[in-house]
């Protein structure tokens, strides 16, 4: 599909044969159209040269038995066999879908709420606030470091710090990270704990809210709660929208933490086998890269649908200062 549209940049400046309603363009429009492609050119080159080939190739591979290592003349077109197997006989697929959905539905809203909450607390300018902001960002700096696996086990295993803390209140804890019913919960906690990313974006967004709006609201006697709902939230909505879309995509794609925490196993008992971990297993452990590509494309379509829903409902609640025409 990329190939088909690749020649459009030229077509844009010289209108196609059947003239449409934009056939008479003002010089400004025309200049803007050209400028659009000038500014877009690095991305377009990147799309053609770097992104399109791997993406389309993976689509092609999803209809083959590609196993990474065999020579290419062993490659066989298998039609939709990979897709059929995924939906009919794969014993892990539905387990993994359930794990991923549970994870995403709980962890993403919690993380967004936590990051917005802390961003609001940190939005005031005062001495030392920078240190606070940086401190709250620290967990995200740890990323998927190997140290993370050690910490999480030390906190959430049977004799971990969390249970020591609970025992102060006389509560007998579970072996969280080693318990199939709770292990995913520790991953969710990890995801929420690393809320620095959306927090920074919220902070940057809060700075864009013109201060006069608050002043005007204060003059009108609006309470802080009212100000939050009538000024902050609407003005922040493009950023909330951004964070919602991106955290959803990232949440579904979360790989590193599950990989690091379970040492690649997705255990105990499949409880942390999130979708991307399954793709990785199929591709790099079982060498069934064709099958893994099919899994990835099913994933792409599912997340794509969710994203479409977000974008099409966005117009009802996202407020754009530029008038919002797309």
């Amino acid at each position, binding site marked *: 599909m990329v190939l088909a549209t690749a020649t459009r940049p030229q077509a844009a400046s010289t209108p196609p044969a059947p003239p449409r309603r934009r056939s008479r363009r003002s010089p400004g429009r025309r200049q803007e159209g050209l400028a659009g492609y000038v500014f877009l050119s690095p991305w377009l080159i990147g*799309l053609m040269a770097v992104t399109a080939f791997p993406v389309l190739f993976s689509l092609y591979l999803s209809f083959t038995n590609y196993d990474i290592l065999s020579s290419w003349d062993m490659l066989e077109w298998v039609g939709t066999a990979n897709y059929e197997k995924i939906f009919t006989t794969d014993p892990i697929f539905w387990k993994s879908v359930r794990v991923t959905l549970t994870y995403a539905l709980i962890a993403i809203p919690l993380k967004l709420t936590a990051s917005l909450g802390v961003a609001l607390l940190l939005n005031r300018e005062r001495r030392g606030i920078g240190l606070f902001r940086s401190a709250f960002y620290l967990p995200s700096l740890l990323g998927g470091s190997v140290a993370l696996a050690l910490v999480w086990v030390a906190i959430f295993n049977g004799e971990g710090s969390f249970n020591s803390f609970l025992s102060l209140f006389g509560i007998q804890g579970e072996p969280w990270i080693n318990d199939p019913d709770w292990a995913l919960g520790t991953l969710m906690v990890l995801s929420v704990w690393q809320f620095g990313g959306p927090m920074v974006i919220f902070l940057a967004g809060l700075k864009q809210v013109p201060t006069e709006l608050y002043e005007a609201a204060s003059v009108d006697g609006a309470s802080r709660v009212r100000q939050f709902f009538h000024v902050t939230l609407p003005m922040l909505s493009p950023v909330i929208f951004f964070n919602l879309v991106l955290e959803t995509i990232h949440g579904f794609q979360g790989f590193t933490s599950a990989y690091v925490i379970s040492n690649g196993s997705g255990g105990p008992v499949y409880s942390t086998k999130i979708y991307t971990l399954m793709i990785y297993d199929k591709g790099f452990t079982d060498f069934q*890269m064709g099958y893994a590509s099919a899994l*990835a494309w099913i994933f792409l379509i599912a997340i794509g649908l969710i994203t479409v829903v977000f974008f099409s409902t966005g117009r009802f609640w996202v407020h754009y200062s530029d008038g919002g025409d797309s």
Partner: protein
Amino acid sequence: MTRARSLSRVAMLLLVLAVVLYPLVWVLGSALKSPTEITSNQGIWPQDVTWSNFTVGWSYIPGVSFSRFFWNSFLIAGASVLANCVSCLLTAYAFARLKFFGRKGWFALMIVTLLLPGHVLIIPQYVLFHEFGWVDTPLPLIVPKLLATEAFFVFLMVQFMRGIPRELDDAAKIDGSGPYRIFWHVIAPLARPALITTAIFSFIWTWNDFFAQLVYLPSVPSYTVPIALRLFVDSSGQTSLGPMLAMSVLSLLPVFLFFLAFQRFLVQGISTSGLKG
């Protein structure tokens, strides 16, 4: 009243902070434990403080010290920051402010590139870069960023630019400015919080990236910090948790300082004085 509110706000911050920082303090504490204590004592603080993990860790990898790994990480992260900021700013301006044929289609395509899980792309990407003759060089880690392939940042900047009041462009247009002047004199300066955010994330993500660097960096002296950190862990035997944790702590420092230095630029909001709100 306001004083009490301010105090309760600080108290709340401190409480949340304590919970949030606990795991990191654990890492620091364990970096100070001796090898046998690390497996036996799960507590937060060591019984006897051992600083040697830091010195041992620094030159743990034979022939290459951590100064080299840090330098490699700096180079790649620094180049990524510059590349992402420039290329994504240009692209985002086109999507957010300019009207041109096919814009919505391209935008949708850009979002699609965010959706595919990376593991199935690694091999086709490698094949491609191998054909370019780029493998065993840092080019595959940097050039794509110069071409705005990190759609996340494009999308981020688009969303920010759409929050910039249109009146500012219109005022400039009335003054006779074209799209290039508007970009340079209006949008680019006002997109500063988004640029800073992009810089921070580019730096941190590149700093922490493991898989791409693992695949494209050819030899131990070209390794970056995250790969070097995993050299400590080996399933077939040799494990050196103490030095590994010590180096993990050190590896957080540059990113922490980078964040600390740049977050203050986030505070500069849009001044809309002189504009009709």
